[in-house]
Structure formats: C-alpha cells, structure tokens
C-alpha cells in the first residue's frame, strides 16, 4: 500500500546505483538517522545505554567488519575476538602513552593497528580455504589472547593484569572513564558506527566490493578476469580487521571501562559475532545490523519477560534464556538460511504488491 516503486524513474546511472533507489526506503533511512541522532540522545539513560544501545552499536561495527570478510570476500574467520582484543589493547596503549591526542584518533589508529595484524594472519588465506582457514584464524584467536596475557608491557605492568580506560574527553565531554554520561557513550559509538557503515557500503558497492564477491563466488574465474587474489584477500582482511579493531577499542574503552583479555575477548566473542553475521545475513550490511540487534536485544527482552513479568528466579531465567536463544538460532537457520536480511528482502518484495498481489 505504502511501499511503491512505480513512478520512481531514474534518469542517470548515479541515481540508479544509489544505496536506496526507492524513495520510500530513502525517506525511512533519513528518518532512522534523525531518530538515532536527534531523539534517542535526549531520552537515553544509563540502563538503556549499557544494556541495549551501546552494545548494539559496538557489535554492529564488529558484525559489519566480519561480514566484509566472511559474507563479501568468502574468507571464514574465527579470530574476531582476538582482533577485537588487538583494538582494545592498542587503544589502551595509545590512550596511556599519548594522553594529549584525542581519543577519537586513538580509536581510529587502533583500528589501523588491528588492520595490520589482520593482514598478517590473513596471509595464510592465499593457500588455504574454507574450514582450514577457519582453523588458522582460530590459532590467531588463541595466540593473541595468550600474548596479551603473558606480556606485561601490553597492560602497563598493572598488578591485576587488567586494563582500565583512563578518563578522556572529546570537545570537553567525557567519553571514557567513570564520569561518562549515557548520552556521550551513545553518541560516540553512533558516530563511529555511522562512519563505518558508510565506508562499508561504499566499498561493497564499488570495484573493491565486486572483487571481493568475485573471489567469494568463484576464485578461479575471478583470477582469469583480472582479479589479483593476493591483494583482494589482503584488502578484505585489512578492512575487516580495521572495523573489528574499532569495535574492540570501543568495547573496551567506552562500554566495559576495564577488561581482562580472556574474559572480554575470548573465543565466545568470535562465535557471538559470527552468529550475528550468519543470522543477520551473509553479504549484507543491513544483515549485520539485524544480527547484532537480534543477539543483543533478544537476551535483554527475554530477561525482562522471564524475571520482570513472570517473576522467575534470576539464575533459572539466565539458563532458560540461553536455551531459548540457542533454539531460535537453529530455527532461524532452518527456516531462512540466508538470514534476517533475506526475510527483510522477501517482506519488501511482498509489500511491493500488497494488497493486490495479482
């Protein structure tokens, strides 16, 4: 009824290739941006920021990063947690070593450092594929966690072995440390997510994205067409790790405030983000958001329903919650292997004709 592309004619290639070719989509996108930047910051409180929005925003960044590697370039990775740890420890070292530089740049540089590490661990992808590559990246996961545990230089020789985010400001507003307001945390992560999402979208719709997808769909044909497999796979690892590094830096500095590497960036984190990407939809930027939302919001929702509404004991609710989330993942994968993004596409196709499908 309201979802129409009839009469929406394109008169230039640029118009035709824009991100939201349908006017309704475009308007909705602007509306979401306006709400995210203009409305939510006014009403957000500590509970909503810490339980829902900040983790959602940060996991979205990580999911976009991993989706570029797995969904677009077709290289399986189980090292996400390790790469997030690189981002976290890089931003920690930068924040403590150069306190006068803005934390905004620290986060970006931490992403850059992670990109370098990602490239290093991505090199085996030239020789090995699929499950074997997954095992190689798993090695990265364990090695990196071990490294940050064993070498005291990384955590500035602190007695606890933990890293603690010092207080830092952007434009005079605290964004890390104990004095940070919910709004500041939210806005900082939102700005980062917006930057990451726009870059990811631009890269995936252009030549670089086509090279990635060509390697994913048929690497031999891609090479014969003129895709250099070395540079293409390495760029995918670099860009993906850059985003994941940013996510790790924010996760530590803004969200947790203090972190211990094995606990915060262990193998569970790698799987969690891989699940987000798979449930959301491989090879879709929207899917990264959807997957992150699903896995962040669902536990919160279940907890509220089970403990808040039904009045179950907390420990029982926590276990039931795990089982329900696990069950839903299986149901989703059977019902729609291409993830939430595919469901969304199907819904849109139906809505194009609704209510007159014939």
């Amino acid at each position, binding site marked *: 009824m309201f979802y129409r592309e009839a009469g929406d004619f394109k008169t230039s290639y640029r118009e035709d290739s824009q991100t939201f070719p349908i006017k309704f989509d475009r308007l909705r996108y602007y509306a979401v941006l306006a709400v995210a930047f203009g409305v939510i910051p006014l009403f957000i409180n500590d509970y909503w920021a810490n339980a829902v929005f900040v983790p959602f925003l940060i996991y979205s960044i990580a999911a976009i990063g991993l989706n570029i590697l797995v969904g677009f370039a077709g290289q399986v990775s189980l090292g996400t947690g390790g790469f997030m740890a690189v981002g976290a420890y890089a931003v920690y070292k930068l924040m403590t070593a150069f306190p006068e530089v803005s934390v905004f740049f620290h986060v970006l540089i931490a992403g850059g450092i992670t990109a370098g590490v990602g490239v290093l661990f991505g090199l085996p992808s030239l020789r090995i594929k699929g499950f074997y590559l997954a095992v190689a990246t798993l090695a990265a996961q364990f090695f990196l966690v071990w490294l940050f545990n064993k070498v005291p230089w990384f955590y500035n020789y602190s007695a606890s072995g933990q890293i603690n985010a010092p207080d830092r400001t952007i434009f005079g507003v605290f964004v890390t440390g104990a004095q940070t307001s919910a709004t500041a945390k939210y806005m900082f992560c939102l700005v980062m997510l917006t930057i990451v999402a726009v870059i990811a979208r631009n890269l995936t719709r252009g030549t670089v994205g086509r090279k990635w997808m060509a390697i994913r769909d048929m690497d031999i*044909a891609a090479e014969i067409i003129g895709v250099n497999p070395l540079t293409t796979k390495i760029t995918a690892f670099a860009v993906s790790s850059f985003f994941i590094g940013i996510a790790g830096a924010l996760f530590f500095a803004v969200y947790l405030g203090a972190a211990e590497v094995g606990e915060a960036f262990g193998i569970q984190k790698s799987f969690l983000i891989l699940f987000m990407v798979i449930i959301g939809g491989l090879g879709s930027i929207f899917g990264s958001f959807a997957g992150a939302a699903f896995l962040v919001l669902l536990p919160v929702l279940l907890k509220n329903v089970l403990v808040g509404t039904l009045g179950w004991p907390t420990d029982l609710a926590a276990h039931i919650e795990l089982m329900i989330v696990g069950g839903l993942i299986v149901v989703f994968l059977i019902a729609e292997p291409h993830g939430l993004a595919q469901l969304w596409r199907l819904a849109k196709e139906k809505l194009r004709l609704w209510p007159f499908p014939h």
Partner: protein
Amino acid sequence: MNDMSDGYITADGRQIGGVLMELKNITLKFGGVTAISDISFDIRQGEIRAIIGPNGAGKSSMLNVISGFYIPTEGEVWFKGYKRGPMRPYQVAQLGIARTFQNIALFDGMSVLDNIMTGRLTLMKSGLLSQAMWWGSASKEEDEHREKVEKIIDFLEIQPIRKTPVGRLPYGLKKRVELARALAAEPKILLLDEPMAGMNVEEKEDMCRFILDVNDEFGTTIVLIEHDMGVVMDLSDRVVVMDYGRKIGDGPPDEVRNNQDVIDAYLGVAHD
C-alpha cells in the same frame, strides 16, 4: 621477428591483419600425461579462429595456455610481437585477453550488472580510499564504466535482466551474460570455450549472430572451441584441428574439411 604487416582477405571480403599472437612449439605435460605436444599456430588481428577436435584432444588445455591458466612445459607464447614470460592469469587478463568457460563460471551471488562491471576491473583505476569516500574519481569512474557496460547490455539484448542475480537465470542467458562479462574488458583477444554447448537451435543462432557482430563491430579477434561443425565452418576464418594433443590440420574451413587426416580423425565421413 614477427611480421605484423601481412594479412589476407577472407571469403566474405574482410581484411585480416598481421599476427597478433603466436604459439610456438607448445608442449603441456601433467606428470606423465602429455596434453599438448609441440603445437604451433598463429592468431591474426581481427580473425575468428576455431580450435576443433574430438573429446580429450587438448582444446581446452590450449585455451588455458593462452589465457595463462596453465604455464606450458615447453614452448613460447608471443603476443603483439613480444615473448610472454610466465604470468599469473590476472596479469594475462590485464594484457587484454578475456575468456568464457565451458562450464559457466559466473559469480552467482551478484547481479548481471555487477558481473559485467566486474569484467571491466582491469580498466578501473580508482583507489581504496577514494572508493571508501565515494567522492570524485571513484563515483565518476563508476558512472563512466556503467555507461560502457550499458552499451554491452544493449548489444547483447539483456536489458530486462540487468538487476537479476545471475544464479536465477536460465542456462542460455547465463552464457550470454558470460560473453558480456568477457566483452566488458574490451579484450584484444576473446577466447570462447564452447559458447554454444547445450543450446537449442534458436539460442545457437542468436549466439552466432552475437559472435559475428562482436567481431564486426569491435574488431575483436576471437578464438573459439566448438563441437557443432556447422557453426565452426560458417563462423571461422581459419581452423586448427587437434587430436590426441597433436595438431593435424590448420587452414581455412574448406581446406580443413577436405584434409584426409582430419576426416579420418574427427569428421569420420567424407563430405560429398
């Protein structure tokens, strides 16, 4: 020294130029198996060159040598008067050699448009950073190349399926999209590996027309492998005949048709 100046006039009156590519004494071995033994022939500017032969004769291997997918065990490939060193396939693509595959090798997850745009990779120059920002050169370049791609889409009459994911297309159209992707690279030499395999008569006629049009309109040199003798004899200017990895005939279709070795090995029966 290769002679780039001489040429010949075809039966239908087209001027064929000098030697574009020359294969000299190519031998290709896989362990103890000799796929190609000591084959030499040349490909001239603007001609349609066919390679025929029974199954397992080494035709596809020959194409793979030309496209750089296999490095010949012995022998030399000369392109535009220069000897081609050992190269990776993507480097060969950058020289202007494009190909299609016997079993369609399209990128199933991408739309027809994206597949064809991928074919223009070697011609697109904008860097990672400018693409990340989508400012200036990257988006301008995208538009320019889109225009060229639209011409090819127009030429091959696949406008309605532009945005369709390739995985959903029927076989005949996939073959056409693959031709479009190869054409998008504006190749000097276009290699077609059984472009008409598995097609019905109508689709074959369409494909023949496209091949002739490509040759006529863009002046592209075409090397094709095909089993349909009628098609080969009609389309090609010169034919190489292979059998068991050896070359047993080379020349215009009429000459090959009457070559006793070829008749024995491949065509089986004498015509008229």
